[in-house]
């Protein structure tokens, strides 16, 4: 089935759709968006819903927060990435690669936009499972080629507007049966974002090491 889907992805129209999305990402200098994240687990009677927001200024300023008021915040300044828990007043520096991997799973893959340099780079990093489009909406279903991600991932879905390439939704299905869906709203591209957004006050916070 994967082979058929991959073969399908190589059809000119579908390739073009992915290329459009990738090219649009190159135009992004800054981004601000609200999102609603839904976590569905087989072990829970009902899904967990959280509001969140993300801000991004290229090349290396990023803030992603979950909860309103925020319960989990990730802030990036250059190579430094911190995981902050405001309720617990704790802060933990993250390894940038690990942060990218974990946040990618949460729908914040754009921490390092663009996700891929071009179509060839994209194909070298992801298996394309399916590409579906209707009207101005396109949904790409992919699976990372990296083996450690495939261990617990069944698939990732990206939904975007074909006309401007804006991301509308991001979802992932885990092998454990869990699923995470992110619906983006109020997406603002290339608007001015004050630097203070990326300076989360952590004075008096307990700093945990990576092991904790």
């Amino acid at each position, binding site marked *: 089935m994967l082979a058929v889907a991959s073969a399908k992805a190589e059809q000119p129209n579908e390739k073009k759709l992915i290329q459009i999305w990738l090219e649009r990402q190159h135009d992004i200098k800054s981004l601000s968006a609200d999102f609603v994240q839904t976590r569905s687990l087989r*072990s*829970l009677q*009902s899904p*967990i819903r*959280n509001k969140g927001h993300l801000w991004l200024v290229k090349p290396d300023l990023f803030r992603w927060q979950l909860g309103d008021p925020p319960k989990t915040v990730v802030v990036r300044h250059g190579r430094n990435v911190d995981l902050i828990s405001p309720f617990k007043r704790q802060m933990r520096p993250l390894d940038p690669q690990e942060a990218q991997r974990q946040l990618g799973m949460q729908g914040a893959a754009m921490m390092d936009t663009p996700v891929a340099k071009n179509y060839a780079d994209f194909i070298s990093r992801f*298996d394309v499972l399916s590409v579906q489009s209707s009207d101005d909406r396109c949904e790409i279903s992919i699976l990372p*080629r990296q*083996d450690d991600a495939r261990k617990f*991932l069944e698939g990732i879905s990206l939904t975007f507007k074909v006309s401007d390439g804006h991301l509308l939704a991001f979802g992932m299905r885990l092998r*454990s049966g869990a699923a995470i869906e992110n619906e983006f709203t109020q997406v603002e591209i290339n608007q001015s974002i004050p630097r203070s957004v990326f300076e989360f006050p952590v004075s008096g916070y307990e700093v945990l090491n990576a092991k904790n």
Partner: protein
Amino acid sequence: MRKIRAAGLVVLLLVFLYAGLSHISFDVDVLRLLPTNLRAVRGLSLFLQHFSLPNELIVTVTAERAKEAESATESIAGALRSRNTIVRQVVSEPPWEKNPVQLSEFVAWLVLNETPAESDALLARIAPGQAARTAQETLEKLSETISPQELALLGYDPFGLTLPLTTGDFFSQTAQSEFSSADGKFRVLYVEGARRFRTYRDNISWIREIRATISQTHLPTGVKVGLTGEPAFVADISGSMQFDMCSSGFVTMLLIGIIFWLCYHRHGPLRDLMTMLIVIFLVSLAFAGLFLPQLTVIGVGFASIMIGLSVDYGYFVYQRSLSHHGSVRVLQKDCLQNILWTSGTTAAAFFALNLSSLPGLSQLGNLVGIGVLVGATVMLGVFAQIAARYPKTDDRGNWGKRFFTSPGFVRAGIWFTLALLGIATVGLIWKGPPRADFSARTLRPRKSGAYDAMDQLTARLTNDADFVSLIVTGPDDETVRQRLEWADARLHAAKAQGLVTSYRSALPLWPSVKNQTCNLPRLRGLVNELPRLQQVVLANGFTEESLGLTRNVFQQFAQWGERKPPIWPENPASHWILRRVASHRDAQVAALGLLHPVPGKHQALANLLQGEGVYLASWGLLGDELLREIPKEFLQTIVGLVSLVLLILAIAFRSLRDVGLFVGITALVLATLAGVMSLLGMTWNFFNLAAILLLLGTGTDYSILLLLELRRNGGDAVAARATLGQVIVLCAASASAGFGSITWANNRGLASLGQTCALGLVIDALISIFLLPEARRWLMNRSHA
């Protein structure tokens, strides 16, 4: 009657050969060659004894694309699983990945090992007044976490039983997969044999069957399969040892045959001499099979060395037989004294290798010593009877006499030898003495698919070859735990002192009898709390499915019930996790950890961790320790051997000048050898240092024989060369052929031993024949003047 007796002897010989040859076995463990008193040797030996997994073959699959590697791995796993007569199990992913329930025994065991305080905390978390709050906290974590693993785990663990699994040091450092590289293009299968391998031949035939099964899967081109792990190493190295031993023996006999033909041009004696050498080879091999438990890689070289030395007695008997006109018994008596003396001293020199504490060297000494005595007996007892019947009117053997006494040849020989000395001196001045190389490289085979696959596995899966294993042993689990605690404190200090960058001790996983004894009675009744806890989870937003892990863990506590600590988990998942952490074998318990020393701090770390039952094991550490200890060890043996030789010579010569001349000549031989080695880029290693001992034992015969002859004939160099020149050339050529034939051995160390000995013998023969008589004449003239 004589015929019956002869037939009886032949039958006895055949029975002996069969019994001996069928018992030959190889020990592929190079550590058996090294002194066991060295801590690095002991550490590596313990690692192999406890954690090398003799029945586990590792199959590596490499492809251009991850998908190709994945499907090739699945095909191979399927094909191997269908061969249940030869394969017990094939593991291609962690056992709990397809069946996570299997992990519950391990989780239960981790909880059982916790301190009573941690156990109290768990009991408090599930207590009637607290359980609902705990479930709510878990729900909160599930909504906050950014880790997909935590999301997957906590959903099935509302009461935090997996806390020791996620917070323990051990698991925080084991993110590396044992099954696949990050890009998925390199995959690994672990294949367990259906039966134990009794001999190396079993091993070789099993590997052959595995290869045949894999080849039937018709993998696409570009997919490469490698075999490694203990069975592959044994098959690979034993196979090459067997080939090296047989091929070097054959090549030596061929070269000896050519040398004999060039000297004598006679078919009959050549045929008989070759037959004798084959008999000596087989009888010595049968001796080795019967009386030595296992041949090591250095012992394998014995066959060709022994043939090269034994043939000397054949030459001597044959040479005497040409001018002998008496009975067989008289010929035997005529040769007895000389053969007894030379074979006795050669065998004594080789047996003297037992003075060394190096087991490999002792084995080589014993094998060659036995072989030389067998050779002398066969040549004197059997070949002399045959040789006595050869025609006597033969002058062809005397061409050598004329050749070796011709002034042109002697002049050319002297100039050639002096030129060689000059070149060697330039080599020594220009490049210095050969450097020492005691790295693991010299202990490895030149070509080995198993080593290549292991190198690839280390590079692709761990990307880190510079680690050191920490082995902690003891008679029981509790002693090992105490030693692990001791080592852990030292490792903590080592990290503070900047000696290690990181370490992973087995301590977090090691059972504590005290903790288990305290925890088990409190945990085994938890199974009765399950109905209450089920109500709690259902009332707090979880489904019944969420309690699966908790239920299994509590049932496991109940199953352990009245068992007496220490308790170890036993299911396949637990076994898989612990197989490279803990071992109970041969009435000994061992724990395995891993360290990453700061470069250049290996020795300081080894010194810090010198405690009872605590060993560091790595090939790098072994190389350092060998470099420190082996030259000392060899020096002691050399001093012992030289003293023995000098004592014998002092009695034989009763002349300080001749003894001094012998010492000077021997020193010149060794210096020339060192110079030539430097020029050729050769290094001293653990194996070829033995060449010095062998040269002292065999090569010095040439100068001793010449000195004796010169003393006998009043210092007539021409007459001495006429008598001994041809014999020394024949002996040196044969012995060099013997040593030279192992130059192409698959083991680098053994090959270097062959090269160094062959080179040394040629230099020894040249200096003895051409320079020794001249030097003695010059000394005599000086003293007369």
